[in-house]
């Protein structure tokens, strides 16, 4: 280390580009997963409360299995294990593209969905039962009552919990480095091992994660204020 704290190599040139590329991949992965996991989480939460028992069992089993195994092991399963179970033609197509990214996406989406589903379930349970009974009495079936009456009320109350899951997702996406997705953490380690400037590389990544966390927290607080019913 020639100078004690020299960040210039991260502000321009190849290492800067690598860091930015990593940040973009982290944001792409987290953003895509957030959208899909929210939809999937709503689906699982509704299944968990459905009047049909087998649907409830499937949803409960999914949630318990996903939540009680490490995300990293799930990612390794999707990356190394799943190809063994897929047909060859699909595999050829996947390997031609960015298979690491797809495996990380699938693993993170399922993992996040299980946590989101539990938050949504408790949000739904906070809505008085009479709302559901009134909707059913008006002639709506279960899915209609959920979609038109329960979920619009429940989702608003769940903003803080869902924000927390988004923050977790941002942090969890760093595990994609283990299966070779070139996201922020992966690029940071690459830069560190090429330049031997551990402190500067880690400090930069730390600052980026913290700024993203703060931005998400601020945005969520603003959204919560605006969406509060008058």
């Amino acid at each position: 280390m020639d100078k004690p704290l020299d960040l210039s190599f991260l502000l321009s040139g190849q290492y800067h580009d690598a860091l930015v590329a990593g940040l973009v991949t982290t944001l792409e992965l987290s953003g895509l997963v957030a959208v899909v996991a929210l939809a999937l989480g709503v689906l699982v939460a509704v299944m968990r409360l459905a009047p049909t028992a087998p649907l409830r069992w499937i949803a409960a089993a999914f949630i318990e299995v996903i939540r009680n195994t490490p995300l990293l092991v799930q990612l390794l399963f999707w990356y190394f294990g799943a190809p063994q179970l897929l047909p060859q033609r699909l595999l050829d197509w996947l390997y031609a593209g960015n298979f690491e990214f797809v495996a990380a996406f699938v693993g993170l989406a399922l993992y996040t969905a299980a946590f989101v589903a539990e938050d949504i379930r408790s949000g739904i349970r906070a809505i008085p039962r009479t709302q559901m009974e009134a909707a059913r009495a008006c002639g709506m079936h279960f899915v209609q009552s959920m979609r038109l009456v329960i979920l619009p009320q429940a989702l608003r109350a769940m903003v803080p919990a869902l924000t927390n899951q988004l923050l977790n997702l941002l942090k969890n996406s760093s595990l994609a480095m283990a299966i070779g997705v070139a996201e922020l953490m992966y690029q940071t380690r690459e830069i560190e091992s090429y330049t031997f400037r551990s402190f500067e590389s880690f400090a930069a990544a730390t600052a980026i994660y913290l700024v993203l966390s703060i931005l998400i927290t601020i945005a969520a607080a603003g959204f919560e204020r605006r969406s509060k019913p008058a």
Partner: protein
Amino acid sequence: MLEILRENWLYLLVGRYPEGPLGGLALTLVLASVSLALALPGGVLLALGRVSHRRWLRWPVSAFVFTVRGLPLIMVIFWAYFLVPIALGVAVPGYVTMIYALAFFTAAYLAEIIRAGIEAVPRGQIEAAHSLGLDRFHTTLRVVLPQALRNVIPSLVNQFVSLTKDTSLAFIVGINELTYAASQINNRTLNHPAEIFALVAVTYFLICYGLTAYSRYLERRLAWGHR
């Protein structure tokens, strides 16, 4: 599947122990328990700092807790690999560094759990302790903390579940715990990755689901006491 299990079960359980270093599931459990044992007092101290009336204590502690909670665990592990040798002045084995990283990370999360427990203790308890003549230190030690910690036992068990899952990140820095041992077997056998990683997932599931069920039981039992 059965063949892989028959040939490798001992390696998955204890690594090369007793001829070589401890590994596999046993190391996973050692990493999780030792880190928790270190993180618990750390978490209590950080929680006390978070609710302290002294600003010079509250602000830096809050900043530390916020920073650690805002970072991915793998970032904390990389920092530990960089800082621990500098701080200690000697090279330490990888699993020791990993324990430091896990303990620091978990302490920050425990701090918020314990803080919630402290804030849930009714003010009247503190006032009663003061009027009995206990000073601030003894009020905290003998009145507030015992109640606060009792209330958060289920959350502590849940945090231990997270910690057990988090030990799998040792795979990334090449420590031979369960996940890494499994990937070694996968590299050796090559054609059964789905079975191997499913087996590892089932192993974690049994431990974590057992603990989760235990924490639900504790939650019910503690709720009973309040009725």
